[in-house]
């Protein structure tokens, strides 16, 4: 058993940062579900705290804790143990296989997208325990995995492999292709490696074995690219958290450390190149006001807010950075009927705060944050990469200082 929880001095800072605790009094908060209860838990015992599954794994407690206790991880381990020893509802089983589902749905995307609006299908979905307050994003047939697998010159010494993740793959391949093209036009050789789901939905739905299976496949694929001199890039912050923290951490994957050391957030990577003087991005000026919502998992990555730092360099773009709001959806968490109320209330709080900034649209890295916030605030929500790509219109503006 990990004894880190003994560093807890019960200061309640984690509790102050827990979004679920604020709106759902059934959840006792990270202090009690994490370090406090941990003292009473024994290895091999069947977990009985059913409220443990109410944690959305946003990790805000972990970021806030000044004493190095990891309430979120303590809770996650307990959730996994709970999932192993209790009957897992159908909806958990479905969501932990969201990658395979996506594979299927995208094949019949035009039909599937229509089917979701059919009443009986919606009833069926509600019956299995899927929440119904959000309009689910449409699936695309022309997924990232069916896009051109590489771009940029073979001879280029700068090589990157883009881990696009499920959402860009099936739902927004247009953004994914923009990111691919952005790096290609900056003189990179970009490859879209064959990949499977990062495993986060499986982890979040209490299926450790499935998460490890998926992680194993990704590790073996990505390791090969790293050996060939590629840097791995991700744009989805939750995928990034899996690759850099969970693979070497809770999943304890062989080779996980290597993946973590060579994996970068796309904005972090661009900034790094700009700082090293290898890349010079020239932006067209705009007159826009936007609110940058920092997703919980971007905060948890511990890399600062690179997307915001990059967007600050666009002349005329006024951004308000908001890092204390959790959108509440937390991947598949809010899509479950039992968490619908929590998710909705948190979403409304965040949407209101973002609207109050007076911005005309929301920028955020996380796809599920965009889904939730755009629908609840009525403001458009966009990916920072989209904004970057637009203000760089055409590769004409992109000048390389040195030969890459």
């Amino acid at each position, binding site marked *: 058993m990990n004894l880190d929880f003994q560093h807890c001095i019960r*200061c*309640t*800072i984690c*509790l*102050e*940062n827990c979004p679920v*605790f*604020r*709106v759902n*009094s059934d959840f006792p*908060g990270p202090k009690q579900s994490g370090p406090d209860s941990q003292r009473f838990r024994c290895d091999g015992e069947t977990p009985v705290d059913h409220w443990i599954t109410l944690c959305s794994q946003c990790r805000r407690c*972990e*970021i*806030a*804790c*000044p*004493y*190095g206790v990891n309430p979120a991880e303590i809770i996650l381990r307990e959730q996994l143990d709970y999932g192993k020893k209790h009957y897992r509802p159908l909806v958990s089983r479905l969501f932990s296989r969201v990658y395979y589902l996506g594979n299927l749905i995208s094949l019949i995307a035009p039909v599937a997208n229509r089917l979701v609006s059919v009443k009986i299908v919606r009833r069926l979905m509600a019956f299995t325990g899927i929440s119904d307050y959000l309009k689910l994003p449409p699936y695309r047939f022309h997924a990232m995995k069916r896009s051109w697998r590489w771009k940029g010159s073979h001879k280029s010494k700068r090589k990157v492999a883009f881990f696009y993740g499920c959402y860009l793959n099936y739902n927004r391949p247009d953004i994914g292709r923009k990111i691919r093209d952005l790096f290609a036009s900056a003189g990179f050789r970009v490859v879209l490696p064959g990949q499977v789901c990062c495993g986060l939905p499986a982890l979040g739905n209490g299926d450790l074995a499935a998460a490890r299976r998926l992680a194993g496949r990704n590790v073996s694929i990505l390791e090969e690219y790293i050996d060939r001199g590629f840097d791995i890039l991700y744009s989805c912050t939750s995928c990034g958290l899996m*690759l*850099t*923290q969970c693979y*070497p*951490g809770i999943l304890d994957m062989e080779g996980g450390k290597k993946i*973590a*050391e*060579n*994996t*970068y957030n796309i904005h972090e990577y661009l*900034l*790094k190149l*700009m*700082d*090293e*003087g290898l890349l010079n991005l020239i932006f067209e000026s705009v007159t826009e006001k936007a609110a940058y919502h920092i997703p919980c998992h971007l*905060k*948890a*990555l*511990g*890399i*600062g*807010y690179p997307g915001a*730092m990059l967007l*600050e360099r666009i002349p005329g773009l006024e951004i*308000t*950075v908001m*890092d*204390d709001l959790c959108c509440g959806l937390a991947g598949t968490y809010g899509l479950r009927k039992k968490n619908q109320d929590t998710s909705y209330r948190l979403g409304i*709080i965040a949407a209101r*705060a973002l609207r109050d900034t007076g911005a005309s649209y929301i920028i955020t890295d996380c796809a599920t944050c965009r889904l939730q916030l755009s629908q609840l605030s009525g403001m458009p929500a966009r990916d920072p990469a989209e904004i970057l790509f637009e203000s760089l219109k055409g590769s004409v503006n992109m000048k390389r200082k040195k030969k890459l």
Partner: protein
Amino acid sequence: MNKGTYDAVVIGGGMSGLTAAITLCDAGKTVAVISKGDPVCCLSTGCVDILNSTDEPFDGISSLPFGHPYGLVEQDLIIEACEHFMETAARGSLPYAGSIHKNRHLITPIGMKKTTCLVPKTMEHANCDENEGIHIVSFRGLKDFFPSYIMLQYSNTGCSIFDASVSSTIGIAERFEDERFRETFADWLSRQHIPEGKIAIPAVLGIRSSFSIYKELSQRTGRTFFEIPTLPPSLPGIRLFKCMKQAFLARGGHLYWGSEIASVEKLGAIIEGVTLKNPGRVGRVQGRAFILASGSFISGGLFARMDSVQETVFGLPVYYPENRSGWFKDSFFSRGHQIEKAGVEVDSSFRPLADAPFKNLFICGSIMARSEVMKYGCGHGLAIATGYAAARSCEGFVR
């Protein structure tokens, strides 16, 4: 030097660190703040104690023993720092009341008096004498708040309990952010037939927009309210921290939150950068100057071993009372434990003393030697004054 180099990197995201960071941002510098977690400020009452051992805090500062860090800050600069803080807070819609020339007294959840100086406007009317009519409004199931204790101390008091259907301070505060809840609450309040006088309420009036909620409630009911700060989780402390953090972000500052410093990159007597401990790859933050505001023991800026005290980030020389047997007084609650004097000694430019190992490092806040924050009751005040002064000194250095 590459573009990613900040003019100043502040280590520690508490009151002193954020004050320094905001001051530097206002001076047009690029600033980053690195913090391993949320600061002790979140656990505080949100009130700014300048100096609690006297009635006139500003005049009292000059009579502090020689070597107290307040002595390093010129008197004008202390006034300027406090004005700067009040302005920053007001711009973040968390206005403060009070003057640094006069202390005031708040009622605590156990009916005792707490001396402090600058208070959030929601506590402006908390100066009460024993016979004044006070009516306490509390919430069903609220822990660590004791109206009956207060009623024992103040003769002319009454109490009503509202059922908010949640019992945590944070849960109730989140409800107050909702307009319909405020309406229900105000309606209920007007039906209580509360006698003339002030209405005291635990500090749960919202998280993000406390002052406007407070104003709205006063207008709706036509009564004078004041908040009583609670035990942690303490909303006024959280509001203050969030307000300062948001002020820093709004000025274009960059945050690296949740990361501890792994190592320091130095070239001779110059610190060039620090690396951040991350589960994956280490991050790097470079700066021309560094400000250390990592706090005292509770914040982890200082660490006590059996026979010595260490500074945890740069390994700076630390002053501490030599004999461990003299570190503590017999009673935990007695003021002035000698160990409180431990800290980093600095010169008049806020650089570490003792052969000044680094030329571009500035120190502020409770990590400074002989600050004895608990003894004198000067936590936030010292943080604001030294944070501001250290930033000014740092500004001169990076100019």
